[in-house]
């Protein structure tokens, strides 16, 4: 409360709930919808992914989110990235938000690596001049050389993630959301990515990170949130939160 922070938070999550209809309840056809309406809404199953989650992140901070599979971590990142709206509550962000919820979003196998860099970066809201300006840095970072002119369908999965990550770390948003995308590529590339992420954080980017690698998370994040069945179990300095999480899990 007495924090001497003049800037408003970069991310504010207020009383957020998210409910999904279970996929097998999905209505695919008009006939299905009519039958459903006639029968009355029988057997509709709601799945609550997040219940009453609140927190805020100050600009330049790095927040880690931990929890078991299905605890709502990815849902939370998707909500902040505006992929879908919360069922209740409010989310506010300041500046450009880039959600890396999977590398190489929108990569088209038929297009060349170069074309895909332009397409992928444009998806994250970069303008053409901005991309042109960064293209060389992206190409160098990917270490793909002449392969950038070949269609992406000829790439190995390692090359694919390299290219995806190379674009991702050159987007320079105000808020960066990372969903377990750090553990990609070979050892050498992994080190390079970690170094680049340190640079990005040093430049003042706000980072929200979902990870299962506790050592890495403790190194990068000052603060962590532990989610369990869609609820915040603990919110505090990452060493304590990680310790508590590991104790409860074992």
């Amino acid at each position: 409360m007495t924090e001497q922070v003049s800037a408003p938070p970069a991310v504010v999550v207020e009383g957020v709930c998210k409910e999904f209809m279970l996929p097998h309840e999905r209505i695919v056809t008009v006939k299905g919808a009519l039958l459903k309406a006639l029968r009355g809404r029988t057997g509709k199953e709601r799945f609550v992914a997040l219940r009453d989650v609140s927190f805020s992140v100050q600009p330049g901070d790095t927040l880690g989110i931990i929890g078991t599979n299905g605890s709502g971590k990815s849902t939370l990142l998707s909500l902040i990235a505006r992929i879908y709206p919360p069922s209740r509550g409010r989310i506010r962000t300041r500046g450009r938000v880039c959600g890396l919820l999977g590398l190489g979003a929108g990569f088209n196998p038929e297009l060349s690596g170069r074309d895909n860099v332009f397409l992928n970066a444009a998806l994250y809201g970069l303008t053409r001049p901005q991309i042109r300006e960064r293209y060389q840095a992206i190409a160098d970072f990917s270490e793909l050389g002449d392969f950038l002119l070949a269609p992406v369908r000829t790439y190995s999965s390692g090359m694919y993630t390299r290219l995806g990550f190379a674009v991702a770390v050159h987007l320079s948003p105000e808020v960066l959301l990372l969903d377990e995308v750090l553990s990609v590529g070979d050892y050498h590339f992994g080190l390079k990515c970690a170094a680049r992420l340190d640079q990005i954080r040093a430049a003042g980017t706000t980072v929200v990170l979902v990870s299962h690698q506790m050592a890495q998370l403790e190194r990068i994040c000052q603060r962590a949130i532990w989610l369990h069945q869609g609820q915040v179990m603990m919110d505090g300095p990452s060493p304590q939160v990680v310790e508590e999480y590991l104790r409860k899990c074992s």
Partner: protein
Amino acid sequence: MTELAEAWRYRDLLFNFVRRDLKIRYKNSVLGFAWSLLNPLFQILVFVLVFRYMIDVGTKNYSAKLFIVMLPWTFFSQALLDGAASVAEQVDLIKKVYFPRLLLPLSTLGSNLVHFGLGMVVLAAYYYLRHVTLAWPHLGLALVGLGIMITFLFGLLLAVSSLCVYYNDVKFMLMSLIQAWFFLSPVLLPADMVMRKLPEKLPAFCKVLYLLNPVAPPLITFSSLLPYDQPGDTNDYLVVISRLEPHFMTYFAISAVTALVTLVAGFVIFRRLQWHFAEQG
């Protein structure tokens, strides 16, 4: 309105989407982009072959007349079919990245517009080689007609592409609808012919319905670019049409209003549905 401002900020993405569509269409083909010109060229050859040598439709230069309405119709129907799936087939992408969803149907419109433009180039070359003199004074009206068609088309695309995410049936309905629409519009059957014939067999309101079809008046303005070469005292197609329907320009205005209403309605539907695209499938 914030949607529109945001879509404008992402205009480079629109450019990238259109480029992708165009590149993908001719992947693994030797002639590549040339197909955009060759396809309409072959279409002309087939029309000429059929309507000059194989069947007598009782109209001179029928193939030339057919082509000038066939091109905008093909653009309209193809864009509608492509656009219907434009959002549904990108749900995986929608789940990963936020970008203005509006750009998906808009990019289908864009890439189809490019093909339409290339087709028009082929058409112009064909008319030039055959020494067809165009009724240039009607060009302005035909361009307004094209504007009406594009407005109407985009309104439909917004509605259809967002509904398709929830109900796949929409696409199949559309396929049947487009087929019927083709025969009820002045494409294969020239408008003057239909408007003469209709009142003979059907009550008067059928002619009203025929002209209330939002694509009919624009297509007629396209036809008016060619001189009317049947026996009579005029070579102006619009004069012929106006004699058959004195209020033709009123119908033209109605189609413009319908197009605008469709655009607004499509936008409202899209806006309502777009937030939940990522929760489907």
